[in-house]
């Protein structure tokens, strides 16, 4: 169900953050930024299978290939921003 999926995703996200925190000491601003993107993402996405799959994939990849650490962090930030509550709506000119 939705609640357990949300809890599982939260746990996976914390695992990702925890793992990356140890490797981003040179840029300590990166993890708070990732957490900010996460906090702004909409709740339904955060409790979705889609998010779990993305998280699981990023976590597995970063653990397997630390040389691409920022690639996976950036990927996760992008995904979270695309599911932001305050997603920017493109301006439309009135006729």
């Amino acid at each position, binding site marked *: 169900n939705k609640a357990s999926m949300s809890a599982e995703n939260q746990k996976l996200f914390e695992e990702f953050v925890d793992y990356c925190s140890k490797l981003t000491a040179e840029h300590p601003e990166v993890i708070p*930024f990732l957490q900010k993107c996460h906090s702004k993402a909409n709740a339904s996405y955060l409790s979705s299978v889609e998010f779990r799959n993305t998280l699981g994939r990023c976590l597995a990849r970063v653990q397997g290939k630390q*040389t*691409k650490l*920022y690639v996976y*962090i*950036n990927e996760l*930030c992008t995904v979270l921003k695309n599911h932001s509550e305050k997603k920017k709506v493109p301006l439309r000119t009135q006729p």
Partner: protein
Amino acid sequence: GAHAAEDEEEDDDDEDPENRIAKKMLLQEIKAGLSSD
């Protein structure tokens, strides 16, 4: 050092190029976000 300072911005030659680009983008975005806050 005939080719000293040839590539000033690239401080870590061993870094994965894709990782370097992603890091640069991420840091620029963080910087932009901080200045707009």
